[in-house]
């Protein structure tokens, strides 16, 4: 499936879909996978997806739907591999930015520095992408559902190009995320990293741990001889 954003269910909070009846749980799955969209976008491989905007999306917002391969490594679309690529640094921060809660990136960025001047290459626009998952993190990918994405691209006076693909319909957040991406390629990278990315990462770790602990508390061990794995 070279043209889909692949999301490894295992990577999204260690939740196994293996024994679950998927169709009944679509809404839950959407929630889970939407957190992990950027994990599925290997560097230089922003996959082409989705050609149709869901009706709701075109009503409530500028439902513009795009293929995603043009994001960073435009022009060098490569086939999605079965396994994940090694994460590059840029991919890590793109992932952080895409999953950040509403307004958080902008708050951190504004607290750290005055925003630089920039020029839009692509003003923020909203569309939807089809998210794929693999039951249990293995096997053939299936379409979990569409999620809304906001994207934009801008350039700084120094020539750095910043992109953003973030979940949800948040144009202001997309702008902030693209600014961070652009700044991370320039001289201010160190400052941005300590002021924006590291706090974000810490917050996400805390949230992830809390969620895992909550889930772990519900784990049931049965004292039986065989647990159905024969």
């Amino acid at each position: 499936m070279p043209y889909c954003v692949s999301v490894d269910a295992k990577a999204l909070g260690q939740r196994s879909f293996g024994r679950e009846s998927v169709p009944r749980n679509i809404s839950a799955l959407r929630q889970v996978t939407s957190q992990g969209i950027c994990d599925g976008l290997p560097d230089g491989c922003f996959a082409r997806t989705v050609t149709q905007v869901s009706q709701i999306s075109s009503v409530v917002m500028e439902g513009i739907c795009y293929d995603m391969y043009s994001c960073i490594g435009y022009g060098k679309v490569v086939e999605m591999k079965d396994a994940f690529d090694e994460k590059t640094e840029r991919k890590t921060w793109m992932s952080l930015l895409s999953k950040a809660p509403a307004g958080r990136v902008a708050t951190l960025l504004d607290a750290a520095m005055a925003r630089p001047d920039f020029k839009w290459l692509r003003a923020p626009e909203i569309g939807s992408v089809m998210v794929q998952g693999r039951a249990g993190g293995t096997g053939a990918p299936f379409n979990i559902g569409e999620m809304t994405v906001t994207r934009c691209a801008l350039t700084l006076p120094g020539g750095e190009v910043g992109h953003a693909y973030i979940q949800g319909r948040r144009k202001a957040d997309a702008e902030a995320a693209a600014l961070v991406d652009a700044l991370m390629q320039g001289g201010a990278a160190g400052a941005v990293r300590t002021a924006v990315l590291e706090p974000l990462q810490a917050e996400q770790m805390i949230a992830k741990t809390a969620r895992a602990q909550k889930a772990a508390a519900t784990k049931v061990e049965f004292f039986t001889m065989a647990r159905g794995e024969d």
Partner: protein
Amino acid sequence: MTEYNFAYLDEQTKRMIRRAILKGLAIPGYQVPFASREMPMPYGWGTGGVQVSAAVLTPEDRFKVIDQGADDTTNAVSIRSFFERTAGVATTTTTSEASVIQTRHRVPEEALTEDQILVYQVPIPEPLRFLEPRESETRKMHSLEEYGLMHVKLYEDIARHGHIATSYAYPVKVEGRYVMDPSPIPKFDNPKLGNMPAIQLFGAGREQRIYALPPYTQVVSLDFEDHPFEASKADHSCGLCGATDSYLDEVITDDQGGRMFVCSDTDYCEGRRAAGFFGEMSAENPSAPTMTTQRNLEFQT
């Protein structure tokens, strides 16, 4: 309304509709399939016309909507306010001021110009549909230019009624090639389709078809040598403006059989009255019966 994209539809949908419009203009009368979207109005209320208008409108346009000629009926009012809100375009009820006119079942009485675009709402775009229900067959009939069935239908009209009884949605042949449904306009309007200076676009939302007539296209209503096509209207003059050359609605005014004929094109009628013309039932007419007649806005022919 910043949450809406300009003219409601998203850009990808507009591009798809725009490609269909261009192909429609290149093949006059041919129905181009398009991926019609659901619109925030029921099918039959002009979803096709609205999508075509949305793909065509620019912010500088002045938009007019008519429903059976009237600017003031529910359908016309709601589509007009829909584009006021989602596209921010100026609107008008005056035919000559409008640059884009969306219409349901009428062509304005006033002659259109080269600077105008007329968008029709079409319920059933396929003229052969009631003769042959299968799309695969009608498509083949169009491709083979096999329109004998339509002539048989018109002939049966003559055999049964003595004349061609089809009075609206009267089929036309475009540039000697495609038989086209002009949408359910009265056949009174058919002669206006040909050689019109304005671009005519037809949108059928539920049936997912777009077709078009470029300006100055040859459009011929189907007929027979001994039963030539005849544009017909009620044999009266307008009760309000006295016009004898416009298409008339018959309006029932009371329970005693009272009725009046009024122009179906409200803008045309108002324009004439403003210019000093009046009909026999108009209030300005000194010899008019002392009856206050209010046009029933819900009335549909």
